[in-house]
């Protein structure tokens, strides 16, 4: 494919508000994971919580929920709104699409409404607005309203690959001529459903998650919101983009709802298809940002698939020990980390990992490393066997 320029981006995660805070945390090896103190959760686990979200608001009252607050907070970082305002002028609001990944949108509002049902009738509170908070489309709708955009719109919900797939979908909409530019992103916020849900599957770590570690015992859930503005190279303002989307690869495991294919077929196909889409050989990739959830099966299977495509040389790491697993926002946060890696020639380490699992053969980088990074592949694999790999590269 022809590259698509990333002309602006912004994010909020447990690492902080905005790109500089994210980069600083990466450089200082400062994890965002803390013992879980969210709502009245009584689970022994760590979470990547965005501090101060409770004090934030939203511009349109009826959309108020934790997830849309996180979306707005992320949109306000890194000059993103200003970049979109420029694009709005350049392309017209009707020609800019909005494609947002989320796994649970504002489900916390439905959880709350169920705790406050009328004891006699069982009815949910009158104040509960399902459409504007809990429905999956709420977050995309809120983002497009906040940014005053009128183009194609959708929420993508393929579990943990959601905000990686937004890049593929946006690229197809642009290529088909349905829009000239796109705001892509992902937003997922802490909620009881995912914390107790992953707990029921015995996939929650009791410690800060340790990807690829011999003693890994599951994931740490995080929350995050991130966005990027995608434009065609011929239309983007000169000098605006430092990174570009070079390729994407999507696949399905066709194996099981909550465990990956034992030979990693889906993961391998996603990586191979992303390379083919970018027209690149495996040797062209300088760093791989792993899905690396720190579950026993994911890390082993991702390693198997990765070694089949790349061999054991290419440096790779999981940044889940920094941010936690942001689920539907993992793709966009790890895309952003990939862009920081390219811009600053920084291979982030696998922060919380101490002793590598000897069964894992790929070149897992434990400590931050300075080296030339021109092209990065980022993996996102989700429940239901939904996989997406993205290739990003330096512009110029």
């Amino acid at each position: 494919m022809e590259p698509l320029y990333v002309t602006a981006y912004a994010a909020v995660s447990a690492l902080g508000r905005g790109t500089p805070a994210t980069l600083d945390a990466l450089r200082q090896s400062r994890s965002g994971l803390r013992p879980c103190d969210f709502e009245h959760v009584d689970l022994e686990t760590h979470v990547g919580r965005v501090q101060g979200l409770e004090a934030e608001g939203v511009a349109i009252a009826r959309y108020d929920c934790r997830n849309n607050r996180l979306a707005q907070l992320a949109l306000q970082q890194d000059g993103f709104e200003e970049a979109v305002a420029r694009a709005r002028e350049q392309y017209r609001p009707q020609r800019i699409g909005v494609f947002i990944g989320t796994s649970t949108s504002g489900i916390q509002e439905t959880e709350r409404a169920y705790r406050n049902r009328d004891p006699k009738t069982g009815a949910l509170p009158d104040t509960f607005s399902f459409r504007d908070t809990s429905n999956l489309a709420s977050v995309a709708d809120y983002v497009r309203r906040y940014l005053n955009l009128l183009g194609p719109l959708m929420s993508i919900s393929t579990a943990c690959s959601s905000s990686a797939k937004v890049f593929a979908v946006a690229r197809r909409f642009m290529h088909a001529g349905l829009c000239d530019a796109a705001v892509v992103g992902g937003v997922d916020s802490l909620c009881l459903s995912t914390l107790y849900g992953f707990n029921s599957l015995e996939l929650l770590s009791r410690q800060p998650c340790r990807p690829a570690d011999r003693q890994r015992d599951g994931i740490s859930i995080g929350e995050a919101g991130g966005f990027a503005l995608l434009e065609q190279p011929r239309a983007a303002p000169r000098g605006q983009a430092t990174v570009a989307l070079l390729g994407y690869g999507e696949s399905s495991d066709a194996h099981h709802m909550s465990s990956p294919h034992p030979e990693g077929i889906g993961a391998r196909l996603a990586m191979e298809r992303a390379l083919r889409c970018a027209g690149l050989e495996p040797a062209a990739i300088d760093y791989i940002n792993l899905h690396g959830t720190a579950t026993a099966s994911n890390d082993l299977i991702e390693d198997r698939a990765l070694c089949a495509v790349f061999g054991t040389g290419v440096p790779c790491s999981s940044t889940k020990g920094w941010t936690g697993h942001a689920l539907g926002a993992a793709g966009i946060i790890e895309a952003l980390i990939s862009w920081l890696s390219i811009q600053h020639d920084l291979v982030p380490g696998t922060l919380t990992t101490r002793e590598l699992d000897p069964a894992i053969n790929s070149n897992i980088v434990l400590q931050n490393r300075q080296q030339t990074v021109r092209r990065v592949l980022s993996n996102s694999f989700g429940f239901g066997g939904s996989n997406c790999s993205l290739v990003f590269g330096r512009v110029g």
Partner: protein
Amino acid sequence: MLTLYVAGIGILGPGFDGWETSRAFFAGECVYKGGDTAEPRSTLLSPTKRRRMSYTTRLAVHVAQQALEQSGLPGDDLATVFASSDGDTAILHQLCSALALPEKTVSPTAFHNSVHNAPAGYWSIATGSHASSNSLSCYDATFVTGLLDAACQATVEHRPVLLNVYDMKMPQPLHDARPIDVSFAVALMLLPQASSNSLARLDIELRPSDKAPGSTLEQPAMENLRYANPAARALPLLAALARTHASEVVLAYVNGNYVHVQVTP
């Protein structure tokens, strides 16, 4: 303009089960009076797997199988789009009810079936397909959004795409907050090129409009159904597909945009 060819249609809803028997209602050859939505019963999965599947998964897989079989295409490398405004709300109800109790005991099966892409996951298992699949929502514009996404996949990636759009009847108390009165699902097998088995050609255009609110249906019971379920916003397109002459369908999208579909048999 995006050009596609329809090679298979699946439908399950009140009084509808399969294109062959439903076509006459759309063509106006008989009066549509509604009825119940039959129990979805796809034969693609083993009874064990079927028992583990949620209602929306069975609903989506039922129509997907109908469209696949009509098209005669193999399913083992077929790209798919699964579009649903609200996903499995019976599971949402189950999870949120459990989380409102002090013990907060969540069923692991309910949790993994709660992901929006559960139907896509089970479909890929049933067909053994490793092809790409998207799962999306766009509230009342979910059908049109799915159609555009499938159209983009088919034309940009040059491959057939199976589009499945479904929503289940909302359980109480959620129904008060989001009234979806009946379960309804539709599937379209969409090809980037004409083939011997294509039923009609679709020329799709997205444009802003301040005019009419889109195509309506002649039969009152069908027009009511169009509003009763977001997936049933597909009905005017199905009516055009049942005709023997070319016609244009206008479907409301979002932000004052409309999707114009020229349907040529």
